[in-house]
């Protein structure tokens, strides 16, 4: 199937494939965990059943999505070693501890409280249960902190030295963790996760309102989601712009690829809206461009000079067509989300938020858009970093395991088959849950096992607690 393919290309395809599947689940569960915490807080605060119903409704969806995130995440944590062992040896002393901290501060927190969050409402009481929900939500955010720190270090390495074995070694951990691109990437990604979840929640609400505008639960979730889109989409566009300026400072070649600037421009670079980047010819064919706008956006001056890829050695060029197009998809969706937020604000002002079929159709169609934007954004930043794994310091070709192509291609085929079989089933189950509107008295996951089962002596219970400690 992959005869003649280079093992490094196959390893990259495998990483891209497994990562793209994986990123979808955390992006959703970061947002959804926070949303669940908000719903439970509102329920405890107001006592209104509608919030409990919505909590139970989304909790079932969260359980399925979280499980898929866990298993696809385990794959990621071993793939560094299986397919990128040279990278692991060289960057392990720097990137490894960041990921170890992610496990220790985030994964255990999520996993430890997830069981209580899913099944424990009747066992531990409302307050302790809310505490568990909040812990899971915080865990997802801490996880984003560490993994984005590690990724950002690979994009904009700082605070390191190189030892005699050729390994990167931390010289200053604070500089490693808070490397130049990290704050921007963290804000941009967490907002993306929140928007992605808001779009899903909004789409489910809109879908049910479309059919019956009187349903209480869908009204509440739709209104909440549209507030999120209205308020956060403009902030996200601003955050993205700042992130871009940071990239221009530290990874100029990536911005050149995003903009399609093969050529340097001495007095004002045009903004190429669309066109066909031709990597071999080193130019964008059939460009539709606005003169000088790129300089205005990136340098805040119409006539500012902007360097192009012609100033970068050819062997250091990122693959422009992919970076160029994925960037446009991300930005396009960003503006569609802002449009949705503004439209909903207009309908809200008219008092028609729950009776606007056009708005509901728009919101339903936008349901998966957040995932597409997240994937496009990651493809932009990861392909734009090429041909390096650690930007400017370690080439992708020098990062791979000493593997023969057949080993990598067979594992790639295995992952493709398994992921499509397993995760498409999961997505179908989630869509089935979403196809039903939340009902009053929504049954949740929580078990009704009596907290004190007969025949349990304290000694026996202590013994089972010991089992946890192992």
């Amino acid at each position, binding site marked *: 199937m992959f005869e003649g393919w280079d093992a490094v290309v196959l390893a990259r395809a495998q990483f891209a494939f497994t990562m793209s599947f994986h990123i979808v689940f955390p992006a959703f569960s970061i947002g959804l965990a926070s949303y669940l915490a908000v719903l439970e807080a509102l329920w405890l605060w107001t006592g209104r059943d509608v919030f409990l119903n919505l909590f139970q409704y989304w909790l079932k969806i969260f359980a399925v999505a979280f499980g898929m995130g866990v298993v696809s995440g385990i794959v990621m944590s071993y793939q560094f070693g299986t397919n990128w062992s040279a990278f692991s*040896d060289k960057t392990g002393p720097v990137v490894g501890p960041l990921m*170890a901290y992610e496990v220790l501060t985030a994964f255990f927190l999520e996993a430890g409280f997830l*069981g209580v969050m899913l099944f424990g409402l009747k066992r531990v009481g409302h307050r302790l249960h809310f505490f568990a929900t909040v812990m899971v939500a915080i865990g997802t955010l801490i996880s984003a902190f560490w993994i984005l720190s590690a990724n950002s270090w690979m994009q904009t390495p700082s605070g390191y030295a190189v030892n005699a074995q050729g390994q990167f070694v931390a010289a200053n951990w604070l500089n490693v963790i808070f490397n130049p691109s990290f704050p921007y990437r963290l804000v941009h990604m967490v907002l993306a996760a929140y928007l992605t979840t808001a779009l899903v929640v909004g789409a489910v609400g809109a879908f049910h309102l479309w059919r019956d505008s009187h349903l209480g639960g869908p009204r509440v979730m739709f209104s909440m989601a549209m507030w999120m889109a209205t308020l956060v989409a403009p902030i996200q566009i601003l955050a993205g712009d700042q992130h871009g300026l940071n990239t221009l400072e530290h990874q100029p070649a990536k911005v050149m690829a995003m903009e399609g600037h093969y050529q340097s421009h001495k007095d004002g670079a045009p903004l190429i809206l669309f066109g066909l980047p031709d990597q071999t010819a080193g130019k964008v064919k059939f460009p539709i461009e606005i003169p000088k706008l790129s300089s205005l956006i990136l340098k805040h001056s119409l006539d500012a000079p902007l360097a192009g890829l012609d100033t970068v050695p050819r062997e250091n060029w990122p693959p422009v067509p992919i970076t160029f197009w994925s960037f446009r998809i991300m930005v396009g969706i960003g503006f569609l989300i802002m449009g949705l937020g503004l439209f909903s604000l207009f309908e809200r002002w008219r008092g028609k938020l729950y009776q606007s079929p056009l708005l509901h159709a728009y919101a339903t169609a936008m349901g998966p858009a957040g995932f597409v934007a997240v994937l496009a954004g990651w493809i932009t930043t990861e392909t734009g970093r090429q041909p390096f794994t650690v930007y400017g310091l370690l080439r992708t070709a020098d990062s791979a395991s*000493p593997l023969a192509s057949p080993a990598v291609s067979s*594992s790639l085929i295995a992952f493709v088959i398994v992921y499509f079989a397993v995760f498409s089933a999961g997505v179908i189950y989630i869509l089935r849950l979403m196809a039903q509107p939340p009902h009053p008295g929504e049954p949740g996951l929580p*078990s009704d096992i009596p907290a004190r089962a007969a025949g349990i002596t304290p000694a026996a*219970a202590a013994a089972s607690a010991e089992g946890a400690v192992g």
Partner: protein
Amino acid sequence: MSVAIDLTMIWAFIIAFAVFVYVVMDGFDLGLGILFPLFANKSDRDVIMNSVAPVWDGNETWLVLGGGGLMAAFPLAYAVLMPALYTPIIAMLVGLIFRGVAFEFRWRTTQSGRNRWDLAFAGGSLLATLAQGIALGAILQGIHVEGRQYGGGWWDWLTPFSTLTGLCLLVGYALLGATWLVMKTEGEVRDRAYRLSWALVFAMLGAIGAVSIATPFLSVQYAQRWFTWPNVILTAPVPIAVAVVTAMLLRSLANRQDYRPFFLSLALFALSYAGLGISMYPYIVPQSITIWQAASPRTSQIFMLFGVSVLIPLILAYTAWAYWVFRGKVRPESGYH
């Protein structure tokens, strides 16, 4: 220099601890999957699933810590072992995917769909266990290293010895699963779990015996470690303790003390694990790379030690709390979904 050596030893113990916690916690969890086909009744299967559903995710997090921690603390070992164990690791990951999603998926589908996910749960558990056992055997039998990379072939991991360790781990995890069911269930399921436990204890003894006999033949160093004076003072108590624990385990099964067999099975695992440690020390990649050669630089060791010393006790505390919340017997009538 002495401080650096101490840190590396500490890290070797931390990683060994994480792997051990993983082995026993996901061990019973995977063991339930291995035993799953023997319980055909739907309500029995629901009980088995419910007994572990709230905690399985935490159990597998120790595997992520083992992998991530190894990369952080012993990057060279991680970089050599993962390509060397390429196929078993990929097989394990695929197995874990199938069994992991089954926990939720089987409640979200029809009867025939549920049968499919039950099969995925059992098959995935079996595959993951076999792969882990084979990986263990492949490490023990030695790995060919060239420079800072794996230098062997793609089928080096598959030998009679690694197949033996794979099968032995199946027996071991099944024993943990059976004694877990003895502890967590009642009635017919528990009765069958008791009968299974009896058979599995003897199978486990055979497994420990077989690996113990085969290991010294792998290399002179293993034989010297175990059978030369004065090492014998250190190594002799291990088989004696195995015999004592096994006797206690059999007695607790005979007396039907529901909670004891599981913890005594854990003790058997701990002893086997200590035996492995005695064989391997001070190598992290046997015969090739010692823990000191593979260790991360001091800055990384110290940076992580801060976190580990605070966080591991905290993690153990709230994990214990989660188990405590879901303590007691699981009943079929207690609805889960």
